């Protein structure tokens, strides 16, 4: 295996980590919809951290190693249309993903606030925050963008 083959393998592994993180958040989005207690919400935090780590490593690895490959791999250039498209889509996914995180952190912050105040029972406001429609839409949008990146990477239009 050449050095570029190793970089390609790590690039693809990063892409898997990115999508795995998104899958984690889909499962959490479904799970948290029935969670109306501070404790139940806070108990999701370790899984959120795994998701954040997967998305962070995945997003960082795909862009850094992807750009490396664009310069290093024979036959591809950074200004190729499909590579520019992938970078633009990656930036959109990252921005939308950050907004999704902010939407769901409102529920987590509220849960911590309630717990600090000694309120451990069900809370309607917390449930409403955990069921954020905005968050679901943003995560759906980020997912569509990531699938478009995958399509772009496989079909390589214009290459």
């Amino acid at each position, binding site marked *: *295996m050449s050095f570029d083959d190793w970089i390609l393998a790590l690039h*693809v*592994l990063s892409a*898997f980590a990115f999508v*795995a993180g998104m899958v984690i958040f889909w*499962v959490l989005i479904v799970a948290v919809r029935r969670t109306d207690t501070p404790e139940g919400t806070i108990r999701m935090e370790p899984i959120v951290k*795994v998701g954040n780590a997967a998305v962070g490593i995945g997003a960082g690895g795909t862009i850094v190693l992807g750009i490396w490959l664009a310069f290093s791999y024979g036959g591809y250039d950074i200004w190729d249309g499909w590579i520019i498209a992938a970078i633009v889509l990656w930036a959109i996914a990252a921005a939308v993903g950050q907004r999704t995180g902010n939407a769901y952190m409102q529920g987590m912050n509220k849960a911590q606030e309630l717990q600090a105040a000694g309120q451990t029972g069900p809370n309607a406001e917390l449930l409403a925050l955990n069921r954020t429609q905005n968050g679901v839409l943003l995560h759906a949008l980020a997912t569509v963008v990531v699938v478009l990146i995958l399509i772009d990477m496989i079909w390589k239009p214009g290459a």
Partner: protein
Amino acid sequence: MSVIASIRPDSENFPLFVHVLGAMILVGGTLTGASALAFARGEARHLRLGYWSLLAVALPGFVLMRVGAAWIYSRSVWDNLPEGTDDPAWLGIGFIVADLGALLFLISLIVGGIGVRRLQDGKGTGLLKATMVISIVLLAAYVVAVWAMAGKPD
């Protein structure tokens, strides 16, 4: 062999998309399941969440991945190699992880399913711990398979 592997006809693009998307869902579902089971600390809700992540996310991902793999294989040169020529190592690794992994995955689902049923009686955490351990082993195997499929070692 690696030259053949790097040349991919357009007709393989869609099967490859199905294969990779399925594999990504499989890895995501397995990571979710393993994480939920690992952080459950005996709590039934999280144990169920972990098990259902494996059953409702990772399993469909596995089916998609395996169907995509068989589809590509049937269209590729690897299915028509001259007699006496072996498949390349990266393809062998993929097959071993997929098929042996399927067996392990099935065992983890059966063991976990019994565990989830026993949660009603306050039991079953040990069985779900076994499911978690198998899931972590599978995750490690999937990392090796993705590395092999993408890097294509000789």
